């Protein structure tokens, strides 16, 4: 009797509910224990929690930054500077490895035995060695080949010394922060005007007359404003003075190793993605296109690449996210990326919990933004089925 009522009571729905309740209870218990210990530990060490530390003076110097920075800036700004450094590296590596990966991937399935052999060894080395070792190796290699005494000239206007590589750069007359802000603002306005034009075209069936002119006008006025303020934009060539270099843009050995090492590593993976993409297009597509009289280049551009994109965009998305993640490895050689900055800020202020939350939030934000962009791209290349 008892057994039967028992069975009736534990219906599947009730059992499911009980499982979930237990899971939630366990989670809450774990969180409660952690919060209790953490707050006790924090109280013991006299650490206060809160976000005020973000506005405090940072007080440490960074060797190289892409956004203007001095130790007098706030902790919040130094974190943004760190994110900027990470994104600059990731952007450059993404661009370079996509281009190189395209060539290496094509060369690998091409006819030429020399090209495909070299591409194959590139891919195998990149895929089977830890990126952190590539960085350490490159860094010590660069450290040994850089001239110890005076700066040497590599090419016209490209100098090399113990401090790194110096290349010509554009000189900005006004504070870089405002230039950056202005560029972002103008870019946003151009995007907005494009959106408005598309909207109007959809409504009225005709492109508005101002559509092609607005972006030109906006960009033109931005450049005009830039050139009118201060001395205008000019080229800034590096000049050697003994072991030192003045002017130009100096790429430190750390930055250089990071970009070259990560590009080498990522190219190996991108090449494999490109190769899979190319092989996924059936050879009948090539034959059909040739028999329609299309040239090899137009076949590639109009027939093969659009079909290939569908296969390669999702894995390329994860490669781009991997670049952002792998750029943290630079901690082994010392370039002020986001994680290095966060480590220093947490060490100096002891705000470990807030720092951890900032780290998690930042990476989530970067990943989600990247995925959103790539998903948009992915949707645009999908076959539209009716």
């Amino acid at each position, binding site marked *: 009797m008892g057994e039967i009522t028992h069975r009736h009571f534990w219906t599947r729905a009730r059992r499911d509910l009980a499982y979930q309740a237990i899971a939630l209870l366990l989670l809450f218990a774990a969180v409660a224990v952690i919060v209790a210990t953490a707050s006790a530990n924090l109280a013991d060490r006299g650490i206060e929690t809160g976000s005020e530390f973000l506005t405090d003076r940072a007080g440490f110097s960074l060797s190289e930054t892409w956004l203007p920075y001095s130790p007098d800036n706030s902790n919040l700004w130094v974190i943004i500077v760190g994110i900027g450094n990470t994104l600059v590296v990731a952007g450059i590596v993404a661009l370079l490895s996509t281009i190189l990966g395209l060539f290496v991937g094509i060369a690998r399935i091409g006819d030429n035995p020399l090209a495909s052999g070299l591409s194959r060894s590139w891919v195998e080395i990149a895929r089977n060695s*830890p990126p952190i070792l590539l960085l350490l190796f490159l860094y010590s290699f660069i450290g040994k080949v850089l001239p110890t005494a005076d700066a040497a000239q590599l090419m016209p206007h490209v100098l090399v010394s113990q401090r790194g590589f110096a290349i010509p750069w554009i000189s900005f007359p006004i504070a870089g922060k405002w230039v950056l802000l202005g560029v972002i603002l103008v870019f946003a306005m151009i995007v907005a005007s494009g959106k408005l034009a598309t909207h109007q075209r959809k409504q009225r069936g005709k492109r508005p007359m101002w559509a092609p002119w607005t972006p030109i006008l906006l960009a033109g006025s931005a450049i005009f404003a830039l050139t009118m303020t201060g001395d205008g934009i000019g080229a800034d060539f590096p000049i050697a003075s003994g072991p030192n270099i003045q002017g130009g843009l100096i790429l430190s050995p750390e930055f250089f190793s990071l970009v070259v090492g990560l590009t080498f590593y990522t190219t190996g993976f991108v090449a494999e993605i490109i190769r899979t993409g190319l092989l996924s297009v059936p050879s009948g597509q090539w034959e059909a296109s040739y028999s329609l009289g299309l040239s090899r280049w137009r076949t590639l551009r109009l027939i093969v690449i659009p079909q290939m994109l569908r296969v390669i965009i999702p894995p390329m998305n994860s490669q781009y996210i991997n670049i952002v993640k792998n750029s943290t490895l630079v901690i082994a050689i010392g370039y002020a990326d986001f994680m290095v900055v966060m480590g220093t800020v947490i060490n100096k202020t002891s705000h470990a919990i807030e720092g951890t939350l900032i780290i998690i939030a930042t990476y989530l934000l970067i990943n989600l933004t990247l995925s959103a962009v790539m998903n948009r791209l992915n949707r645009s290349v999908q076959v539209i089925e009716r």
Partner: protein
Amino acid sequence: MISTSSLSRKMNPLPFLARSFGSPINILITVVFAGILFFALPPLVRWAITDAAFFPAIPETCKSASGACWSFVIAKHSQILFGIYPDGERWRPLLVCALLIGMLIYSVRPSAWSKRLAWVWAGGLGLSWWLMGGGIGLANVESDLWGGLPVTLILTVVAIGLGFPTAILLALARRSKLPVIRLLATLFIEMTRALPLLSILFIASIMLPLMLPEEILPDKFFRALIALYLFASAYLSEVIRGGLQAIPKGQFEAGEAIGLSFAQLQAKIILPQAINVVIPALTNTIIVMIKNTSLVLVVGLFDLISSGKAALADPEWSSPSIETYLFITLIYFILCFGFSRFADRMEQRAKAPVK
């Protein structure tokens, strides 16, 4: 270039000379690459072989040579591989390395998946522990003295070994019909995958001391192990989930129809098929994990790279870092490349028609 290869190779492969010089563009490519090799290879060979220092493996050999200082690697290979493990006992970590690699290779074969596997793992890890730490019949070696390759391999193998069962549970939880369980699993997996391993290691090393009471606070080694374990289980679970998705719905329905419980259904019908589908992806993830273990360097663990750096600190030598890093890269390369070749062979055999 692309087209001809993908078409012609199926019918009849072109001879070597035709592939190298068959068309103007191929001649150009061959000439350019041959030119690069012509200028890059001789200095490389001079540095690495003809001008390099080998024997006798003493600092003086390197000072008189203009090329690579392989004498250093030859003299210090034991220290790079095993860190500061006592000199006379280094056969023990060597045996542990062989044991761990053997376990990894043994376990990825589908024919090994039975209850016995758990015992093999328990036995293998226990044996490694005994060999490394000593005790019954062997001299005691404190864990502070462990270092180099065995540490790298222990971290990899334990993280994967513990991560795999967890990953199965996570994958099942993420596909569960129960919304709370699904949400929790998804949150954990996506959070872990969004963060770089380095930040997970970093968070583990600063947050665990805050979150846990002093008494149960794990040391550096276990903190890194926990971080690697969480990382491995999140990545492996996504691979397994991919396999689960590939199983047709009819398999679930048939299993339920003959009255199997959830656990029986998963263990006997679904998981064996699902994991078989994703073996290539699993071995890829394992290679990624082997490579990722190199990151424990940054939380101050004495892994292969750290022991290489420690060997470089010897003032008698001129600190040949390039050669040392090349040596360590070679070790990783052999591990990863060998493992991926093994996985390829296994995949080919699985594809071969059954007799």
